[in-house]
């Protein structure tokens, strides 16, 4: 189990990080959704590759879920939402793009630094894989923190989930339990998000959380 197969896995994981950076770079919603789709697609590829090299056919299901659900359904749904609400023209970041990118770099550096002292017991594969997955997770979180619009926050959250998926599938022989739970939870998470977005839209005519905050009131 060495050589080219792992190189390909790494390449895919690295690509995922790259796409995460691309997400950070995108300031408009629609391209962001495209990148999200690409992100999920690469994840699906990666999972499928893992399924292949680990001879773990159940991972194909995960790959399929990633492909169908995350790469197609969700981006499409979000795209519709964006159009319906007429917010496809703009997306404001809180922190400037340059700074965000810099922060992203720092996060990648941090995750590598944290993973470096892994002892020889753990395979180097794991070390690098997890470092990349950690980067994706952290960048996803950064995305959530630096964007004000709910749609882009959802995007951030999903890229975070993708990172976790990457880690989970990279872990050899991780029992099915986790796989299903990941998919399951993402599903539920998304459904509930949907419910909430719906309700919130119904009441507030927007999904901008900033507007939500106006209802804080002073009575606490």
């Amino acid at each position: 189990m060495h050589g080219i197969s792992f190189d390909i896995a790494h390449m895919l994981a690295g690509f995922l990080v790259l796409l995460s950076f691309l997400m950070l770079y995108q300031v408009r919603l629609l391209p962001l959704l495209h990148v999200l789709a690409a992100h999920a697609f690469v994840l699906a590829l990666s999972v499928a590759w893992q399924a292949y090299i680990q001879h773990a056919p159940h991972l194909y299901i995960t790959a399929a879920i990633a492909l169908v659900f995350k790469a197609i359904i969700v981006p499409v749904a979000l795209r519709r939402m964006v159009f319906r609400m007429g917010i496809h023209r703009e997306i404001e970041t809180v922190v400037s793009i340059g700074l965000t990118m810099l922060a992203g770099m720092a996060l990648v550096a941090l995750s590598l630094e944290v993973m470096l002292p892994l002892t020889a017991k753990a395979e180097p594969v794991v070390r690098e894989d997890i470092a990349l997955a950690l980067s994706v997770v952290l960048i996803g979180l950064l995305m959530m923190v630096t964007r004000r619009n709910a749609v882009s926050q959802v995007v951030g959250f999903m890229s975070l989930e993708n990172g976790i998926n990457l880690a989970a599938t990279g872990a050899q022989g991780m029992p099915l339990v986790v796989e299903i739970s990941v998919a399951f939870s993402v599903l539920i998470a998304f459904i509930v998000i949907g419910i909430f977005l719906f309700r919130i839209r119904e009441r507030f005519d927007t999904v901008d959380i900033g507007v939500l905050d106006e209802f804080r009131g002073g009575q606490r």
Partner: protein
Amino acid sequence: MIEAAAYCVAALLALAALGVGVARYGPGRSTIYAASALVCVALMWIGIASLGADAARMKLPLGLPWIGVNFRLDALAAAFLALVGLGGASASVYAIGYGRHESEPGRVVPFVPAFLAGMTLVVLADDAFAFLFAWELMSLSSWALVMAHHREEGNAHAAYVYLIMAVFSGLTLLLAFGLLAGPQGSSPGGFTFAAFRASPLPPATVAIVFVLAMIGTGSKAGLVPLHVWLPLAHPAAPSHVSALMSGVMTKVAIYGFIRIVFDLLGTPSWWSAVVVLVVGGVTSVMGVLYALMEHDLKRLLAYHTVENIGIIFIGLGLAMAFWANGLAAGAALALTAALFHVFNHSVFKSLLFFGSGAVLTATGERDMEHLGGLIHRMPKTAFAFLVGCVAISALPPLNGFVSEWLTFQAIVLHPDLPQWGLKVAIPADGALLALSAALAAACFVKAFGVSFLGRPRTTQAAQAREVDAFSLASMFTLAAICLLAGVLPGAVIDALAPVTQALVGAHMPTQMDRAWLSIVPIAEARSSYDGLLIFFFIAVSAWATALAVHRFASHRLRRGPAWDCGFPDPSPATQYTAGSFAQPIRRVFGTVVFGSRETVTMPPPGDTAPARIEKHIHDPAWETFYAPVAAAVGGTADWMNVLQFLTIRRYLAFVFVALIMLLLVLALWQ
């Protein structure tokens, strides 16, 4: 004996529980109070009977299993047990009558026995857990009592400050006990006082424990600047509770101090004596100066409690100073003086609070500016109150003088001490003690003169009625004790001998077998005092003179209007008020200590409007220590309150930053 005391506590707790049910009914209330009076008498008797006996122990399988609840009745505990019993009994008897006028009996009756039980338990406790449990129970139940008249303005604030300070003291003591217990706390018997005594501590630890004990018990006892709750809480509580809080609870706090510093920590270092002396001296003078600025009768009394606590701490500091230098006789003398004053203050302060309660019942007023002339309407209360005033002013032949005299005798012994710090601190304390005694006399001239003498300033005062027999009985009993302890101080000193013997390993010479019942602290040539003879001489010569004058000179008497230099004014408003009475002293001391100012607004010439004088007083303790803390907490709370109203994104940012920080910590740690 100790079992009996435990049963008494159980009985008090049962009375508290019963009180919840019967507080609504007048006879029920009286029964509860009467029963608690009986239990307290039993406690007093137990205390007195076990003064000379060996320490008795008892362990109940309650609390934490590896500690249990340990009780111990040694001489010190017995002395304070007697004190709690005496205070509790007098307050309970007083309350039988006073409680009839209670507007919120349901908020008072159940808590009084609980409060008494709490105080008894503190005295009996022999492990840190039981001690603190009882300590906080005492605070909590008295808090409820302070809160009883919660709708009156200021009471809620008073109760608030009170409980905060009480919990502060509890937590400070918690730290002290934590240090005393060390890491062996989980071993069986880890938190018992016996274990504390057995394990010697390094000097630095002892120093910290001492400071913590000083703060912890001092804030309960009312050391300046930790005294702020006293003048707030005492007026707010019903008067019998004020008496208990002031007369007994502050003494229980002093018990805590003695227990920790004298018993658990062992021989002190001389600098700790200096600390106690300085704090005690400052407290005594500050307390009385505060009192002089007051015209609320109960607040005035509360400030005098602060003063007397200071005097007691001076005595304790002296005892520590002598003990630290191995002068057991001096230590015994000073400790006896302190304990004697504890007893005295308990008695006369209860008496005075009862008196102020009687005035409150009769007139509905605590403000002295609205009183006056009560000696005519309430002669018995006035007499009892006068006895209390003379006693607290440390005037012979009553008891207050004896304990301050003993303290002075200890001060005179101080050249035997080698340390320069003590040589300077003790005479200075002597000066402060003298100053506070003189000021106290001035203050009680004011208190008695303005409230009871002169002409009534309001109709309430003019229509006051003498209070009921129970209240009077309680007051007169205490007044009698004031006199008895004043003329027979030897009995009290001898009773305290086992306590000092147990704590500092020496006791004052036996006094009661001396001829003429005089007291001699060290040696005849040095000093002696005979309250009985002095009292006898004064009484006989006054009586004989009066008799002789009436018999041989003249006994004719004519009533007429007051002369007043020919300008008698019918309005009682022209009398001296409490504010005007204290004005000279306010000018002498107040401008420095309280930054007091007076502004006089005169009407323009020709205008008949009255001129107005306004006085402004700052409370240095509050403004130096408490206001900044309150402002800091409030400011920080305001500043942090923004965190309640952030956007979800910002909250996520917190999570994110926390994650990054922890990862950075990890990276650095590796």
